[in-house]
């Protein structure tokens, strides 16, 4: 392995770009905070905090999806991902960072009683409302704060434990017995993360953070829908980093074969997302009960109509048609293009999920959204680059590494 570059050096260009994006983002963030976030106008307040909320939730969840990817492939005894597993690991180091931003924003929204965002914070309205009184055991500030803390805390902690274990694969060659023990410990830790992931991302967290904006409305598909959305964007993010690293001449052991499998994940989970999107839509359309259709009213027939259908085109039709062919999934340029498109598409999806409920009358997608997006993208590039540089790029003594090197689709 003499010729393999294990150490990533952050290129100057990447640093400049990421800091530039953070700078632009911080400017937008502070400007927005002053003019909108702390303004006395409720509409402006909702606009700012809502925008911040969907961005930070989106980025936290897609970075968390990276750790989920490592854990499920570990549980499935997968070997193929070992040659590039340091990339999802590095992306998952963002969970504590973005998680604390999410935590700060959500706790601020709840503590400062912004009932225009979370209607269930309004105690007088809840007391008069039978439906909200019924939900009060779940939708209340105390539970929200405790559960948010636990969710973000355990994602960070269990993910950190997974990454710690991965360091052992750099230390010394393993004989059969140590290797088997190492895999078993990996499996146990991955299982713990996966269970916690199911209890949070797979169910409660999207209900609390996003679905409760429409306090009366509910959908049993919502959490799965959010999960599919973030997982497919998470896979796209992994693909983007993979292609970037290959472009810079790293990751010699990762080839088209691995890209093909990552591309399959992007393709398959785009279809899975559509399946959930459609199931949620069709059941509500079919039953045609006003308290349920209210969610789609302004999305399908109102101001959000263009975004609603753009969402479906970018996230379903494009992956379906473009990524279907085998040669497309093995083409670095095309996968990179699709990855950017999918991440953008699901960012738009999150936009309409949150802002579509907060500001129903008109679409205000503008400088604030893209400014805050650039802040998160910059942060992501900066910290993931640092995390990649902090460790060898290949876990060279991992028992499954050989399986990954000879991987063939």
């Amino acid at each position, binding site marked *: 392995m003499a010729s393999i570059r294990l150490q990533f050096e952050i290129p100057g260009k990447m640093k400049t770009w990421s800091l530039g994006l953070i700078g632009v983002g911080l400017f937008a963030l502070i400007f927005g905070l002053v003019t909108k976030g702390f303004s006395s106008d409720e509409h402006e307040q909702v606009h700012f905090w809502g925008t911040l909320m969907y961005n930070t939730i989106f980025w936290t969840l897609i970075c968390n999806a990276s750790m989920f990817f490592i854990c499920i492939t570990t549980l499935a005894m997968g070997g193929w991902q070992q040659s590039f597993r340091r990339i999802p690991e590095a992306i998952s180091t963002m969970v504590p960072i973005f998680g604390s931003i999410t935590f700060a924003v959500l706790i601020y929204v709840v503590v400062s009683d912004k009932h225009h965002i979370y209607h269930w914070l309004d105690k007088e309205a809840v007391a008069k409302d039978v439906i909200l009184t019924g939900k009060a055991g779940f939708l209340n500030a105390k539970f929200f704060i405790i559960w948010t803390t636990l969710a973000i805390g355990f994602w960070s902690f269990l993910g950190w434990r997974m990454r710690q274990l991965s360091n052992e694969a750099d230390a010394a060659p393993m004989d059969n017995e140590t290797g088997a023990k190492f895999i078993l410990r990996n499996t146990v830790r991955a299982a713990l993360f996966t269970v916690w992931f199911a209890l949070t991302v797979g169910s409660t967290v999207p209900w609390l953070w996003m679905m409760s904006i429409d306090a009366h409305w509910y959908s049993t598909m919502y959490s799965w829908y959010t999960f599919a959305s973030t997982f497919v964007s998470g896979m796209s993010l992994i693909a983007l980093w993979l292609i970037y690293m290959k472009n810079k001449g790293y990751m010699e052991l990762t080839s088209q074969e691995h890209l093909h499998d990552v591309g399959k994940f992007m393709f398959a989970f785009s279809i899975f997302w559509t399946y959930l999107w*459609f199931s949620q*839509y*069709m059941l509500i*359309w*079919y039953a*045609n009960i006003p308290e349920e259709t209210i969610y789609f009213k302004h999305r399908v027939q109102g101001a959000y109509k263009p975004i609603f259908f753009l969402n479906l085109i970018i996230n379903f039709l494009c992956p379906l048609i473009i990524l*279907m062919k*085998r040669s497309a999934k093995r083409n670095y340029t095309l996968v990179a293009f699709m990855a950017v498109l999918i991440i953008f598409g699901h960012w738009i999806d999150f936009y309409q999920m949150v802002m579509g409920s907060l500001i129903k009358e008109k679409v205000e997608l503008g400088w604030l959204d893209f400014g805050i997006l650039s802040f998160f993208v910059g942060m992501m590039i900066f910290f993931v680059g640092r995390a990649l540089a902090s460790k060898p790029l290949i876990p060279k003594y991992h028992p499954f590494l050989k399986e990954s090197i000879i991987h*063939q689709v």
Partner: protein
Amino acid sequence: MAKKKFVIGCFDDEAVLFPAVKKVRTAGYKIHDVYTPFAVHGLDHAMGLRETSLHTAGFIYGITGTTTALSCISWIFTKDWPLNIGGKPHFALPAWIPITFELTVLFAAVGMVLTFCYLCQLAPFVKKHHFHARSTDDLFVMVIECTDKTNTDDLQAFLTSGGAVETNVQVAEEGWWLGRYDQDEMPFQTKEIVAA
């Protein structure tokens, strides 16, 4: 029902098989097929087989299913027999998507199975020649097509030098035939030449 002469080389190790395939191809012999007990990754590439067109066929069957379902349902519910179902519009696209999806999958699946059987020449009552019984157990069996000019002894020696544990010559049907084993002459056995 053309019969052909084949030279068979049996290998007991993948690591020997791959270089042998390469050597045989470089030497200019035509490999009829390699029979293995399990799917060997990269063997198709080593043998220079072209990419299968089964998935293109699958795509076409799928599209056919989609079109069939959509055109059929929309004709029935809007032109032929419009019904008021729960006050929904006659052209109720969301309600049709599940059926369209099912028909797409059905057409693609059934079509691909049949195409696969056709490509592999598999069908009920169809016979295929087995070059070596142990190709379903533990041997990798390479079958090389002979021409008039092929010197089978040379080829067998060449295979043995390439690591084959067993070689022989067979005359066999190259594809499938209809018939019965017990009534047909065993088409894959060389006739013994009895010395006078």
